[in-house]
């Protein structure tokens, strides 16, 4: 069965938890002991209704404050697909946690309250979804029951959003008028909105076409681990294990190894379940090669006529995530990109992006926690990469503070501006 990873972004006020509760409940994925537990807690706290956010807000601090602080993962399945929900916080002070949850999803759901329309938070969430290159976005205009299921309200919000979104890089946006509380257009079609001809949210999640989201053109295989059995039964086995980051590899393919530039041929592909004919994006495999080349972790296998960029001078959108110390220009950090680790300095902040207004603020030389800027970097070793929008796996990196070990920044590599 296919698996879809999606993120829900927002706060309790948007009806996010109610929506997740609705999906889980209607797909029979809430268990009795979980429901009994949250019923008991809600009752003890004197709530008027069962607070479904208690299902996902699993930490003591979250339950105390009634907000989502960190990403929670939830799982449910229908006969058509399995789903992994990354339930992300919506508040601006938890932007880094939202990015954590949304970084590797196929689809993101952003909720808009029908009574308030597009607000600053909607713009911020949509910008982050766009920056992270999430392939599919669903805008749920929620609480339609509170605006009398009025088509004019939905149309106005849609137009408002589209006007704003024209400045973003969003590939596939779907608008749905729903009421998570009443259940309209979540799992079953709403009788209250006959004017809406689109599908329900669940139907959309089950059917959204994701097969073309991976980059199947540009062959990229970062070498993760060299397998050399010290066993007499396998005297000559030498395999290069890793996860396909792009393209489709076959036995017989001519390949090039970077940074050495040496070429050879794939003679066989082993998967965890046995030998296979081909390996596709996302597959964890071991490549067997014709020639005995010196290849180590951090090397990149590609095709001789289709290579990633190789450079020590990088340009990226960088989101700062360290609450203890802001990004400092010219400080030495550790950078992790695919299976490669090097050291890096941020040499310049070209601008800081105001994530609420999209304004580019210049004359800045540091980024504080949750701030995003376009920066240039210099690394101690060549990085083999693609533009993030061409390939998420070879276009992303993290910055680690060498003193504290904290994951201090997350970056998306871009082609230098001309």
């Amino acid at each position, binding site marked *: 069965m296919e698996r879809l990873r999606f993120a829900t972004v927002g706060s309790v006020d948007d009806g996010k938890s109610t929506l997740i509760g609705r999906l889980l409940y209607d797909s029979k994925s809430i268990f009795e002991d979980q429901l009994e537990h949250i019923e008991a807690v809600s009752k003890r706290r004197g709530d008027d209704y069962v607070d479904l956010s208690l299902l996902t807000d699993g930490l003591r601090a979250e339950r105390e404050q009634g907000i989502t602080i960190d990403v929670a993962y939830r*799982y449910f399945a229908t006969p058509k697909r399995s789903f992994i929900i990354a339930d992300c916080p919506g508040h601006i002070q938890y932007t880094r946690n939202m990015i954590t949850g949304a970084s590797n999803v196929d689809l993101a759901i952003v909720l808009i309250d029908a009574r308030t329309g597009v607000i600053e938070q909607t713009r911020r969430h949509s910008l982050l979804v766009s920056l992270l290159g999430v392939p599919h976005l669903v805008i749920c205009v929620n609480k339609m029951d509170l605006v009398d299921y009025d088509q004019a309200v939905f149309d106005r919000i849609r137009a408002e959003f589209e006007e704003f979104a024209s400045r973003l890089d969003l590939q596939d946006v779907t608008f749905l008028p729903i009421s998570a509380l009443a259940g309209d257009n979540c799992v079953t079609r709403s009788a209250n909105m006959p004017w809406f001809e689109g599908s329900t949210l669940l139907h959309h999640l089950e059917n959204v076409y994701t097969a073309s989201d991976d980059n199947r053109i540009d062959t990229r295989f970062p070498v993760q681990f060299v397998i050399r*059995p010290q066993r007499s039964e396998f005297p000559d086995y030498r395999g290069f294990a890793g996860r396909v980051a792009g393209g489709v590899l076959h036995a017989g393919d001519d390949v090039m190894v970077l940074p050495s530039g040496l070429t050879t041929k794939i003679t066989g592909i082993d998967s965890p379940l046995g030998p296979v004919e081909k390996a596709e994006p996302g597959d964890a495999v071991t490549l067997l090669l014709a020639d005995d080349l010196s290849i180590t972790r951090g090397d990149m296998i590609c095709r001789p006529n289709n290579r990633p960029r190789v450079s020590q001078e990088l340009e990226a959108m960088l989101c700062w995530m360290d609450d203890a110390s802001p990004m400092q220009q010219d400080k030495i950090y550790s950078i992790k990109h695919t299976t490669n680790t090097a050291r890096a300095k941020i040499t310049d902040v070209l601008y800081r992006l105001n994530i609420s207004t999209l304004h580019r603020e210049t004359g800045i030389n540091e980024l504080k926690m949750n701030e995003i800027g376009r920066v240039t970097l210099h690394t101690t070793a060549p990085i083999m990469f693609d533009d993030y929008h061409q390939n998420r796996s070879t276009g992303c990196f993290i910055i680690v503070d060498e003193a504290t*070990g904290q994951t201090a920044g997350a970056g998306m590599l871009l082609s230098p501006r001309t």
Partner: protein
Amino acid sequence: MKSSLSGLIDESVTIIREVAAEFERPVLLFSGGKDSVVMLHLAVRAFAPARIPFPVMHIDTGHNFDEVIEFRDRCVADMGVQLIVGSVQASIDSGRIADVTGPRASRNPLQTVTLLDSIAEHKFDAVFGGARRDEERARAKERVYSHRDSFGQWDPKNQRPELWGIYNGRHRQGEHFRIFPISNWTELDIWSFIAEYNIDLPSIYYAHRRPVFRRDNMWMAVTSFLQPEANETVVEEMVRFRTVGDATCTAAIESVASTVEDIIAETSVARVTERGATRADDRMSEAGMEDRKRTGYF
């Protein structure tokens, strides 16, 4: 033909290889329970045809089901891996911890001390655990690479961001990481893997007749470590275990599911989570797991 589980297997295998590449001394926690069995099989497949480049470790409360210990020893022998046993009894004998007494005593919480002592003794810097995020709400919040300070503590409010599948295992001397390669598997995924690849498990996962008694609305097995109180009547029931842990706090469920297929059918329609159905230890408080994890529990 691709397995329905292939995306999950790829993710788990990638995590296991990444740890082997980046850490000095990893170890895989192996109790003989189904999640750790699946994790061990994934590790074998991650490095085949080479052997797993790290040992496995069992934290042994001394209060086990015999079938599980027999299975544990057979399994590691078959796979040719090295087994380290961290013994709670030894921690008690050496005075590191005091044994618990009374009819409701369970050594389950004592494991934390033995676990942390064993990690320190062997200087392990990465400890693979078979925890899944669908098990429990505190676990739903935990990263794949979960940092532990030099006291073995988890700080849930200050977890490192974890993006894209790039993992940050940087740590100071004396700190370690708990690694959860099967975070995104559900109970049903685990059983599907067991069915698809014909994985051997301890017999107590399948329905069998056993003397049990009712306690806190759960069926507890009579063992030399757990005896009924005066008002608790022992009966023989067809039961199986949905989880396997310390015998004093792991309950059985009524079931006639004697094959993997039966269990998958039963799990598909289950209305109670596996921990809710069978773990006395999780019922302690609203934040029972979070509190135990903070101090270094699995």
